[in-house]
Every structure is written in C-alpha cells, then in structure tokens.
C-alpha cells in the first residue's frame, strides 16, 4: 500500500512537475497551456502528466477536445496532515524539554558543559 505513497513523493521530486502542480493551483489548464512556458515537446509534458496522474495528484477532464488537467487538492491536504502530526510530535518533545530545562534551572547545575564556547572547551562535555 505504500507504493501509491511512493508515487506521490516521486512525482513531486521532479522540479518540472512541481512547477506544473504549482500552476495548476491557480486553476485547470490544457496540456498545451501547461507546455507553453517550457522548452520541451508536448510529448515530454504528457509524460510528466502521466506520472502526476499515476500518483493521483491530477485528473483529466472528460471534455474530449480540451481534456483539462485538474489538480486533486485532497492529496495535499493529506500531506498537510502528516506535517501537522510531525509538528505535534516535535511540540510534545519540546514540552518535555521545557520540563527538563526548568529542572536544570532549579538545580543550578554547575557541570560546566553549558559554558561551552568552542570546540576545545566542549571536551568537558564528554559525559558518556
């Protein structure tokens, strides 16, 4: 099941495809419109679109003439959720650090490691 996920990441790893996705944020576009700013063939652009389609990032309209390319924003919503979960975990970790720092404060520790000014002084920081 993670294969589909890999497609999404692989699709977005290419700068041209990321650029195409960015332009599709502004609205649907035809293959011709998407190809216009690039010095590449329509075929090359179609190839990029196939990768984006395969990853579920874009869909093609039914209009036989234009077949406009449409960005599927839900996939990005999902990425946003992952990022938010990662952020919440970092925040939980940092809240534990808040508690640890408060304890350091109280104990007025004088181990000296926190005075580290340069790489020589930091040798005192070897604790393990």
């Amino acid at each position: 099941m993670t294969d589909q996920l890999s497609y999404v990441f692989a699709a977005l790893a290419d700068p041209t495809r990321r650029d195409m996705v960015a332009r599709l944020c502004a609205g649907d576009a035809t293959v011709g419109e998407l190809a216009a700013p690039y010095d590449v063939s329509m075929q090359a652009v179609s190839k990029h679109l196939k990768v984006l389609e395969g990853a579920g990032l874009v869909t093609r309209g039914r209009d036989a003439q234009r077949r406009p390319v449409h960005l599927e924003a839900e996939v990005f919503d999902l990425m946003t959720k992952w990022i938010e979960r990662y952020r919440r975990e970092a925040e939980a970790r940092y809240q534990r650090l808040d508690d640890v720092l408060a304890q350091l404060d109280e104990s007025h520790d004088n181990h000296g490691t926190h005075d580290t000014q340069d790489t020589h002084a930091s040798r005192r920081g070897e604790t393990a």
Partner: protein
Amino acid sequence: MTTTTTTTTADGTTTIAAPSDLPVIRMTRDFAATPAQLVRAHTDAEVFARWTGPAGSQITVDHWDARSGGSWRYLAVFQGQEHGFRGCFHTVRADRLVQTFTWEGLPDAVALETLTFEELGDGRTRLHAVSLFESFEARDGMLSSGMEVGVNDGYARLDALLADREV
C-alpha cells in the same frame, strides 16, 4: 515556484515548514532558557535522554562524544521495538550545533541538522532547527512515517483517496 506543499503551522508554539523548493524541514520553538542551557540539553547525554524520542520511549545512550568531530548513538525502545539512531557532531559551539542524523533502519538516509540558538532577552531563546535531506522522497518519508503512532491511518486514508478515484 510557489509554496504549494509548504505548510507553516503556528497554533502551538512549534512552527514548522516543509518548503516545496528544498528538501528541508524548518522548525522554530521558543524556550524559557538561555542558549547555553539549550546547548547543554542537546549535548549532555544524560539530559538529552530525558526529553528526546517519541513519548513513552526508553532511551539508552550507547555512545556520546559531544564535540566537533565526535559522534553519537542511542537506542530507543518504543512499543516493544528497539530502534538505533546515530550520527556525528560536526560543530559543537555555544550558538550553533551541526550534526548528522540517521535511523539505522534506513542507514543510507542521512539528514544534516543545523540548530541555532537566538537569544531573545529575558532569559528566552528561540531554537531554529533545519534538517536537510538528500531528496524530497527522503524528506517526505521522514514527515509521513518513522515511528509515529497513527501513520497507518495516513496511509489508509491515502489508499481510500486513491481507491475512490480508481487510479
């Protein structure tokens, strides 16, 4: 390039950004501490082990040499599974820590982490953490997976999404 896949969230106190033009994760967080205390929290093995890792994990420091050119390794037992993490301390300085970070389950995926400590006055310090990955896949893999509880929910939701569209 716009910021299509960039998300900056600020409803807690940790802010995060995963820009679409660089494979990095940037985080900032303010602390009621001095830069020296924050450096110590990241370089003193005993102190570090008290707050790092996923909640509820047991951290055992295996090796720790917190000076420029030194290295580190620790084990985290989380939900009955042991995970090894290791890296090198590249720069250890009063205002800056630079180190590599590797989860041993994916030994070729090495992130470069740069932590800087900005003194805000009144005993407060802003931590800036930048993690640079080898590729967007590696960055997004880090964001979406790892040891988080509920990552499978994310996959399940994506699967459902993809299935709905019958791609």
